[in-house]
């Protein structure tokens, strides 16, 4: 006699989405570790399309900030990184990533200001040499 398979117990929709979101997040982190920055951003974006205001959306946004701040990313963009870190700070004030996001914003903002100083000085030098 063939035994009967166990009955399928339907998971609640919310739990299913959280599990799926965590899978996307894990994938995003793995892709980042492998240097696939575009893929990592796509996986993070999937998390956001599943969960807008709930955890781990804050982790996904923080992760996207990291991808843009990553020094090896050919599309490294400090301003976009600051934008994502600021979204974590403002959109998820209770998130565990807020403090780290603030540090990143401070560092990247400083870098941008230094860059701005260099640009201004170089422009002045160029003006003088004309």
């Amino acid at each position: 006699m063939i035994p009967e398979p166990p009955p399928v117990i339907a998971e609640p929709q919310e739990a299913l989405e959280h599990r799926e979101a965590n899978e996307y997040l894990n994938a995003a982190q793995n892709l980042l570790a492998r240097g696939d920055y575009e893929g990592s951003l796509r996986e993070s974006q999937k998390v956001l399309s599943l969960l807008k205001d709930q955890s781990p959306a804050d982790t996904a946004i923080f992760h996207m900030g990291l991808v843009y701040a990553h020094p090896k990313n050919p599309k490294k963009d400090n301003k976009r990184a600051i934008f994502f870190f600021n979204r974590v700070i403002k959109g998820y004030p209770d998130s565990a990533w807020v403090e780290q996001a603030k540090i990143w914003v401070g560092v990247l903002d400083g870098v941008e200001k230094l860059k701005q100083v260099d640009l201004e000085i170089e422009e002045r030098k160029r003006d003088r040499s004309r």
Partner: protein
Amino acid sequence: MRLSLFSRLILGYLPVFGLVMAVSLYALRELQRFDDITQSILDRDNRILDYEKKLADSFLSQVRYERKFVITKDQALFREFLKFKSDFEGHLREALEIADSNVAELLSLVKQDYERYQQLFDKEMVQIKGHREYPQGWYTREKNQLTDKILGLLEKVEAERQQGTYNKVRELADAGGRAREGAVTITIASLAFILILSLLIARSINKPISVLKNKTREIAKGRFEADLRLSSPPEIGELAAAFNFMCRKLSELDKVKSDFFASMSHELRTPLTSIKEGTGLLLEGVGGATTEKQRKLLTILAEESNRLIGLVNSLLDLSKMEAGMMNYSFEKASLAPLIKKAVGEITPLIEAKGIQLETEVAERLPTVKVDSERILQALRNLIGNAVKFTPKAGRVKVAARSVTGKIEVSVRDTGPGIAPENLKAIFDKFHQGNSNGAFSVNGTGLGLAIAKHIIVSHGGEIWAENHPDRGSTFTFVLPC
């Protein structure tokens, strides 16, 4: 004071030397000015421009590190800031040392603003070190304003120096133009001065030399008056004195010569004439009957006396001519009768030698101004010479024609001719003209020399030519 030629030349060329020195000194002075201006551009203007760039660079670097330090509070950036601060202050100090008043004024303003900038930053440093909240934006604006001001002043320094360099280059161009005009003016003036001076010196030398030359011509014409009055330059004066001395000596010599000719005429001709006359009388039988042998001897004596008288006369004539003491009495006459007379005189000798004589005198021969006796003497000498050298049964041709304002007379013979090297020397006294010894003819060697003197004294020319076949032609021309 009479200046010698040497002194004149030295004194004359001293101003020239002075002018050349003046031109050289002027050129040297202008070159020194060019050098000074060029050096000033290189040493001052270019260095100020260099310092201006260094000041701007070090100040901007200082601003860069100051602003980065304010952002990051990183001490390494502050140390870089201090390094450029030290550079800036060093450059500013060195620039102020070589700057002229205008640039120094601008650099002083730079220094003032820079000190205000430093004071602001020092105050901000106090705030930063105290970790206090402070109006960073206000500090930034103030510092930016001062930065703009300092950089603006440095730009003015650059513009000022560029203008200064431009002005100096223009000054160089103007100075070059002035130097060129000055040099050209001085050179033209020098050349004019040298020309005038040379003319004056040359004139002061030439004038007495010209007087000397004229006096020499007078001496050549036989006027020996010692009347040359030249005292300057001293060298020419001495020459003039020597000339006068020479004239006096020549005059004395001339008198001695005249006395000699007078004496000779008397002392030689008189006894010869006596011998000739005595011999003639003896031949005529005045001294009694003479034997045939005695008559032969007397005839020889008479002929030799005649020959001797002729020789003495020729010698005296030639001497007078050479001494310029022969007197000529010129009057208009036709040469045809003279030729006819000369030919007639020699006819007996021609007939004796069996020579054929031709005469070809052009009709209506113009008259010439001549001393007839002397021209007749020249004709006699030339025809006699031709007959003398023409062998028996030979030919002599005497021709006369008019040739463009002159009368040409030629005597052609069929004698032995003249050696080519003797064609000119044939007219020298005592020159025997037979060429190759085929003819041995006795003669005094004075006839042609006398003929040449006579023709030349008439303003004419005489020459001899050989003929390709045989014989020679003696030709003279006289101006109409």
